[in-house]
């Protein structure tokens, strides 16, 4: 059980999200348990977007008029807020569309010039496709080889062979938190050893920046990628943290306007980082609203967010255990101290899509499928799993609704 004061805070938080005032088409309360896919947005974020378009919509970095100056200031202030949120300097934060684009930026701009034939790229077996496929393509371009830190049947990383895997390793790219199983990677163990082996270190923060206190300097990551839409901000904007010296040494990714210093017909010189990596008009409104989302999360406190999710995950594990006699099986480490607020499960022989469809009739939104981790699913021998994920606006009553809906699914499927 959560402390009553904690639950009350979650319920107060929910009031900040307009979507929860609307019933579903079937007249049910919206029970949103798919924040690992995308989070809901608080009113302040929605209002920031509205305010920009109503009051000071203008392009940035060039206009001399008042609203252009206001837009530029808000855009760069948002960068400073996002930088502060992860312990970085503003000059080390590059705006991208999302985590995927940030990882692609590294794979092309850094990878093409730094990875050679025979180099090893070390990943883990639980990576999201977005932290796998860009490295497969980089390996194809350069002749590098991919290696993987294995996972055991509980979804925990096996580090027994880590030193051998790191031998000759040019790059380590690793999810901070697994989107499928919730596993928190022991970066405090892995990163120093990767550093000692001379690897450049990329952390996929898509599932950690929203949920855990993150300090990129303490993590000692060279790059850290994350998306606004999973942390209360809008879609279409994300960020890449890169160590200043690395960003300076890298060639541009995309090229065009805004990323240049001077252009002649046959050559160009480039702007300083981070602007060197931001070709074309940026996603101004969404970047500014990302700043508002970060303000909101800062006020809640990342430590409170983490503790809230730990408590609600513990409560969910306790409630779901009662369904074990009916064939409910939860995957992953099952230790709330070692996982983010993500639970993958199956109900007897009921396919995850059927579970999700029945839950939907009760207003309960979960994910079903392979969660963009097809190799992990194959390795574990699962065709698909159902996944419930929690965030700041979820409370015990959401878990209760999940359990009730699962009982309905079990009843319909006679398990």
């Amino acid at each position, binding site marked *: 059980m959560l402390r009553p004061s904690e639950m009350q805070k979650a319920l107060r938080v929910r009031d900040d999200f307009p979507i929860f005032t609307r019933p579903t088409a079937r007249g049910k309360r919206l029970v949103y348990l798919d924040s690992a896919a995308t989070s809901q947005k608080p009113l302040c974020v929605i209002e920031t977007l509205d305010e920009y378009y109503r009051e000071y919509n203008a392009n940035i970095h060039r206009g001399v008029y008042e609203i252009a100056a206001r837009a530029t200031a808000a855009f760069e202030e948002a960068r400073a807020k996002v930088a502060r949120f992860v312990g970085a300097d503003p000059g080390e934060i590059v705006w991208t569309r999302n985590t995927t684009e940030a990882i692609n930026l590294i794979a092309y701009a850094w990878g093409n010039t730094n990875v050679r034939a025979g180099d090893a790229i070390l990943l883990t077996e639980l990576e999201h496709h977005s932290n796998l496929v860009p490295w497969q393509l980089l390996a194809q371009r350069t002749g590098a080889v991919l290696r993987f830190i294995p996972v055991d049947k509980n979804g925990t990383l096996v580090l027994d062979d880590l030193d051998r895997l790191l031998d000759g390793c040019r790059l380590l790219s690793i999810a901070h938190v697994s989107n499928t199983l919730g596993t928190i990677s022991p970066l405090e163990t892995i990163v120093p050893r990767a550093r000692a082996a001379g690897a450049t270190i990329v952390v996929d923060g898509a599932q950690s920046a929203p949920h855990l206190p993150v300090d990129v300097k303490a993590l000692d990551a060279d790059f850290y990628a994350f998306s606004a839409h999973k942390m209360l901000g809008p879609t279409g904007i994300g960020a890449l943290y890169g160590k200043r010296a690395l960003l300076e040494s890298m060639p541009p990714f995309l090229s065009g306007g805004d990323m240049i210093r001077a252009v002649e017909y046959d050559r160009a010189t480039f702007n300083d980082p981070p602007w060197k990596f931001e070709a074309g008009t940026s996603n101004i409104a969404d970047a500014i609203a990302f700043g508002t989302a970060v303000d909101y999360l800062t006020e809640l406190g990342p430590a409170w967010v983490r503790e809230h999710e730990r408590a609600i995950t513990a409560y969910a594990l306790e409630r779901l255990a009662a369904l074990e006699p009916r064939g409910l099986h939860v995957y992953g480490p099952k230790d709330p101290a070692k996982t983010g607020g993500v639970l993958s499960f199956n109900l007897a*022989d*009921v*396919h*995850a*899509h*059927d579970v999700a*469809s*029945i839950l*939907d*009739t009760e207003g309960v939104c979960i994910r*079903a*499928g*392979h969660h963009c981790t*097809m190799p992990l*699913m194959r390795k574990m021998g699962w*065709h*698909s799993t159902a996944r419930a994920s929690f965030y700041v606006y979820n409370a015990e009553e959401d878990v209760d609704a999940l359990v009730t809906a699962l009982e*309905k699914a079990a009843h*319909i*499927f*006679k398990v």
Partner: protein
Amino acid sequence: MDDFYRDYILDHYRNPRNFGHLDAPTASAEDLNPLCGDQIRMELQIDDGGIVRAVRFSGNGCAISLASASMLTESISGMPLEDVAKLSKDVVLENVGIGISPTRMKCAMLGLRVLKSAAIGELAGWPDEE
């Protein structure tokens, strides 16, 4: 949607008809739904007169996709291959007998899509995937 899971649907899901493989299929095809990973394979035995004499399907998927595929195999037994190639989605909708939500329509139609591509491929003389 919860009305969908009637006893006969669950029966076809748990005891799929014509599930397995043929020793020497005349035609076959396989496809998957990349969004969810559901996968279905259809194998057909066609006689010299162009009539479906045997059909087997295999794969994995949700109750909607497997039950739809299972019922479909019963519908086409003894049917001319040319008619199989022309089947519309109505055959699936009639078999399941209850509305399917738009988000699950792809699941319901996976078996039909695979079956038709096997039939059309055979009629057109396309090289078999084997």
